[in-house]
């Protein structure tokens, strides 16, 4: 073995957090299933669910706290930084593929299933015998069996709230980039101000989503039960909303850390990772706006 020109390797000491993570996740999912089963029979929430969620919160505080301490303690070298970057990048790719499953379901339902249910292709008898009277138009307002799954009264338009939300998210991608430029020049004031604006935009987006959901449920009859249109609508926008919630939370943590002065012009990967994530939820939203709301 020759001498090194690579610098020292960093290997973390044994850590309890992976085990805490396993216990937290297992407790949460058992709690979640028990809750679902009990609620299906009119019961209440399982105590394991909040315990599991609290454990997950403890995990995040503890594990990320340990990593922040190590990073601030100067223990990380460039190699560790690269590993984190690669890790975050491919994590985001895995998230892209998660959304791809739901977009795939949307496209399959719209392009294939819809037409076949209405008797398209060589499925004339499907429409004729199984679902007589079903009209293959998207969005589906009358489902093949409208007694089991009652369709919505009308579809969610693209203009109005969704268009405003698109503008908000696009704007927030700009503001987070301005904040990053401030950080790179060690200008803390613009960093904090623009980051705070980004968090606020995220919060406004989420509020408007809630308004939209309330409107859908109360005024439009558009629910999770209203057939494949409602299913794809709520799962796609719902998972996107969950990711925006997570992203806003992470931005908020970055804001707190920026106020505490954790970041320097050349050591702020946590901020960059969150910014990447934020751009990712932005891009997913564009897909949603085009294919769920608009076309």
């Amino acid at each position, binding site marked *: 073995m020759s001498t090194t020109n690579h610098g020292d390797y960093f290997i973390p000491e044994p850590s309890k957090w992976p*085990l805490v993570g396993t216990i937290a*996740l297992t407790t949460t999912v058992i709690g979640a299933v028990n809750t679902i089963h009990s609620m299906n029979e009119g019961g209440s929430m399982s105590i394991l669910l909040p315990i599991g969620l609290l454990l997950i919160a403890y995990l995040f505080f503890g594990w990320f706290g340990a990593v922040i301490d190590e990073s601030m303690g100067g223990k990380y070298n460039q190699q560790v930084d690269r590993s984190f970057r690669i890790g975050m990048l491919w994590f985001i790719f895995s998230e892209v593929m998660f959304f791809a499953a739901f977009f795939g379901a949307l496209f399959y339902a719209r392009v294939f299933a819809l037409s076949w249910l209405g008797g398209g292709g060589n499925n004339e008898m499907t429409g004729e015998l199984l679902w007589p009277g079903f009209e293959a138009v998207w969005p589906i307002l009358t489902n093949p069996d409208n007694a089991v799954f009652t369709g919505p009264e009308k579809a969610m338009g693209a203009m109005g709230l969704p268009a405003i939300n698109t503008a908000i998210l696009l704007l927030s991608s700009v503001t987070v980039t301005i904040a990053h430029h401030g950080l790179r020049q060690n200008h803390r004031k613009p960093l904090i101000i623009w980051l705070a604006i980004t968090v606020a935009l995220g919060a406004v987006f989420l509020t408007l989503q809630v308004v939209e959901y309330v409107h859908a449920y109360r005024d439009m009859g558009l629910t999770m039960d209203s*057939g494949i249109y409602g299913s794809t609508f709520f*799962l796609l926008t719902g998972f996107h909303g969950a990711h925006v919630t997570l992203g806003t939370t992470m931005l908020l943590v970055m804001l707190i850390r920026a106020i505490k002065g954790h970041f320097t012009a050349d050591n702020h990967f946590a901020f960059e990772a969150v910014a990447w994530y934020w751009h990712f939820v932005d891009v997913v939203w564009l897909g949603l706006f085009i294919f769920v709301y608009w076309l």
Partner: protein
Amino acid sequence: MSAVIEEHHDHHDHKPTGIGRWLFSTNHKDIGTMYLWFSFIMFFVGGSMALVIRAELFQPGLQLVEPEFFNQMTTLHGLIMVFGVIMPAFVGLANWMVPMMIGAPDMALPRMNNWSFWLLPGAFGLLIASLIMSLMGMGSAPNFGWTFYAPLSTKYGPASTDFFIFSVHMMGISSIMGAINIIATIMNMRAPGMTYMKMPIFVWTWFITAYLLIAVMPVLAGAVTMMLTDRNFGTSFFDAAGGGDPVMFQHIFWFFGHPEVYIMILPSFGIISEIVPTFARKKIFGYSSMVYATASIAFLSFIVWAHHMFTTGMPVAGELFFMYATMLIAIPTGVKVFNWVSTMWKGSMTFETPMLFAIAFIFLFTIGGFTGLMLCIAPADFQYHDTYFVVAHFHYVLVTGAAFGIMAGVYYWIPKWTGNMYDETLGKWHFWLTTISANVLFFPMHFVGLAGMPRRIPDYSIQFAEFNAMATVGAFVFGFTQLIFLYNVIKTARGRTGVKATDQVWEGSHGLEWTLPSPAPFHSFTTPPQVK
């Protein structure tokens, strides 16, 4: 909380002690060992379920178990063998070998590595708990086959299906984190001079496998999430009454499922590509074509999924596309088989246990590949679909393919892991009994399948009796033979074989992992080696 590993070698064996060493580990070897033992235990759990299935099928008629329980056995056998045996064994081997092969001290993200492992006992705990509840008469374990097609799993699935769904979520998180870790390790931790095209083939195959995992495990997570909401929250993804389509489930599932079966074979290709050159005492024939073939197989795996669904119904253009695309896979796979054989050509060969398993792999995996070609011909598949011919096909590629690769790898590397040679006599007994019994077990399934015996049914028509009896005998010999393997591994690990391994272990072995002492030090390379 942490320490920078100094360049001094005296830090090497500061092992943590007690149970904490395993629970809190950040060491790629310890985590690899846990993965391998987890896989081994699950191999016996899933194997005993297979024996229940084979015992019931020993003769026509219903004798041992209820059909309902038989369904639970086929389901859990499949799930456990896929997610609990083959995949964890590969990750365990990657954990042990990838850092050593590329000249790294450990995996890139050691804490996440440990989380990837410990999620598995949680996930399989949930799954097996549902079986225990079923045995105690409280509900049913998942009973819809490992492919959990809707509506069997949505409208008609037992209550435990919801536990199964979250269990799959946890396995998915584990696999995705493991894959990210392997990618970060390979991209970022290679020793100076270890360029991509100098990496051992095992590292290459795992690199590509990791991308497959990141691309498809999230799709599986999406599929089970849609199941969950269909079951509990009123959505209609897989219900035509609401404008959804149960066939859509199959498309989403197999978009995951086909890359998944390559996830379960590519690392074995890598292992065989390490072993054959060592015992032929030649360099691998066609290194770069091996890499490109692996990448081609991975790419093709994304555009062939509907060959699992020829009889489900799809436009003829779709049947044709998926048929021809599937046939294309034979080309890169043929390149690999050709290269292994050419590596042996005029080599100075010896036949230790790893090499025996590797050669058996080449023969028997190729049989599985050929039956795959038969199955990919859409009009012929209408006859084969859902028969024992399919069962024979995928057991040839998964047992005598993937599992043989893993066994070959264990025999090949265990001297490096433990510092002791395994018992060669026992190894040979294990090999011959396994190979013969596997063929007694799986070969007759081709015949009964072609003659029309359906899979996943606890009873069968009388004319299939002899071949089924034969298969059951093979199954029990196969199952109990694995105890020899277990005994040999324990004997080697405890140093009772009496033969110490040298650093190089095998006369013909090349590569960084063989420059380390046997047993390998706790942190593999604390100073990066220079690769020329």
